[in-house]
């Protein structure tokens, strides 16, 4: 990474807008890999990243799954945390006081166990003035409809987005699951139902077995695969979604290095989220931001928008 000195080169403008929120740069953490922000404050300057995205919140606190909850795979990891979180009340009471002091847009990721619950959480999020936007995780089983995941059925996805849209007075980002036949169908459905932006992808369901105990390596049997292993799949899906919708898209999946983030931006993502990489290097996002900047300078790009969607065929 080249050092960039103000005097020698003009710094490229990295700022982007997602769902009406202005971000100083297009790099933010992926939900569930950055806690509630405070956990990583010792390791990087939270006022240098584009936004802070919280762990997924639900109406009531959620305990999550039994352990083992994580297992490493080749170039990836499986997790079955089970959406453990403090719940919206404790979030407001215990987590917001810190977040309020940080001059960076806060995005609350959230979910519900039922359609109604999604609506309820959306309403409660309106009570938090400092919240810049909400990110709706539709990769959750629909308890009432026999556990089928909301986000795998365009109709259910559309329904939950419409309901949330009705209740939420904040910009709405909808986060898609990759475990679908055609992600463009779901993307179109949630855009029509009122999503201001689309984030993709969430984890891909996977499984790993310990051949000696002959047990699944996760207590939950299956879990979500994240990390570099899934990046080519994520890039493909972001490419497809960008071609389909007109709202901005946030690219997620296996971003570890600046060049990985650049791949997503080039196929048309307006911003990116960094997940598993935070565990590997708590300052990963800083390296990625600096690397994007250095790349822009090398390529003579003075506004990141010249890069976004610049894929050639």
């Amino acid at each position: 990474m080249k050092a960039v000195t103000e005097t020698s080169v003009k710094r490229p403008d990295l700022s982007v807008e997602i769902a009406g929120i202005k971000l100083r740069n297009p790099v933010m953490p992926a939900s569930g890999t950055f806690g509630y922000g405070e956990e990583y404050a010792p390791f990087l300057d939270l006022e240098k990243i584009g936004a802070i995205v919280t762990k997924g919140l639900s109406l009531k606190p959620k305990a999550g799954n039994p352990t083992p909850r994580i297992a490493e795979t080749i170039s990836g990891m499986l997790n079955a945390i089970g959406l453990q979180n403090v719940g919206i009340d404790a979030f407001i009471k215990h987590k917001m006081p810190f977040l309020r002091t940080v001059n960076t847009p806060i995005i609350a990721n959230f979910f519900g166990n039922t359609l109604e619950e999604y609506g309820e959480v959306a309403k409660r999020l309106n009570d938090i003035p400092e919240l810049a936007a909400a990110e709706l995780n539709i990769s959750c089983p629909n308890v009432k409809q026999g556990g089928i995941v909301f986000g795998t059925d365009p109709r259910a996805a559309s329904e939950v987005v419409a309901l949330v849209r009705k209740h939420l007075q904040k910009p709405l980002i909808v986060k898609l699951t990759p475990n679908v036949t055609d992600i463009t169908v779901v993307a179109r459905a949630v855009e029509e139902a009122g999503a201001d932006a689309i984030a993709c992808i969430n984890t891909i369901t996977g499984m790993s077995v310990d051949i000696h105990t002959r047990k699944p390596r996760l207590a939950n049997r299956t879990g979500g695969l994240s990390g570099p292993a899934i990046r080519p799949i994520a890039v493909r899906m972001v490419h497809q979604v960008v071609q389909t919708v007109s709202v901005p898209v946030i690219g997620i999946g296996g971003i570890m290095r600046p060049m990985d983030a650049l791949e997503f931006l080039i196929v048309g993502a307006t911003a990116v989220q960094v997940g598993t990489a935070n565990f590997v290097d708590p300052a990963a996002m800083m390296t990625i931001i600096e690397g994007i900047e250095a790349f822009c300078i090398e390529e003579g790009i003075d506004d990141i928008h010249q890069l976004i969607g610049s894929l050639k065929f």
Partner: protein
Amino acid sequence: MKNYRTKIISNQEISPGYFRMKVLAPGFDEKAHPGQFVMFRVQRSLPPLLRRPFGIFRTGFLPADCDGLPPIEFVEIVYKVVGRGTSIMAELHEGDRVEVLGPLGNGFDCTSRQGEKILVGGGIGLVPLYMLASELVANGCKVRLLMGGRTRDDIFAVTEFERLGVETYISTDDGSLGEEGLVTRVLERKLQKYPDAEVFSCGPLPMLNAVHNICLTYKTPLQVSLEESMACGVGACLGCVVKGAGHTEENPSYLCTCTVGPVFKSQYLDWSSLQQTDNNCGGCA
């Protein structure tokens, strides 16, 4: 806590399959408490993807390389080669670049100066007991260390513990060093003799469980250091939880091993779930 992008000072095999590694870490010493751990990044390239957690064996200073320079501050870990990550670590050399995140977690509570202190370590579980022993000795406590292992290869650092002024008792399953049999048998004998003792333990789960049961019987306070698979080490991923005492399906209590632990007072843990856990992590924290 901090991510040290640093270098290896030394990396040596101290017993078959067990290595000690010193890593340059300015400012580490004054921050570290007994029982804390670090997240170690083996190398910049994959695999492994995730960092690996290791207990802090000790921190300290080496003489400066040249007059006028400050002494060389290091953090030392002891690790057992069990899989891919630790195998790669065993191949590292002085001067190799590594990253160490730490010190992390809640360590042992050694504020009580009363009574005998009995430390029970099984295999690699000896690691966090060294700093603990030295702090307890510094506090003026009488410290006894019961070291257990499968064979004599699993017993290390005996002289170092003894140099602190700790009384050591060794037992191995095969009798190849010290007494033949389980370390828990020694513990029972000691507790009969010192009813007001406080116990600190780290080792494989079956051992910890036996230690817990013995301490229950003797009504002895116990602190244990646990091990769970970890991705972040800082409370962000929620991968490393254990069930707290009083955990129920309706009113669940999950505690992060990385932030609430790795050391827990035994009464705060749900021992029935720990017994079931299939945590084949081998070693300890």
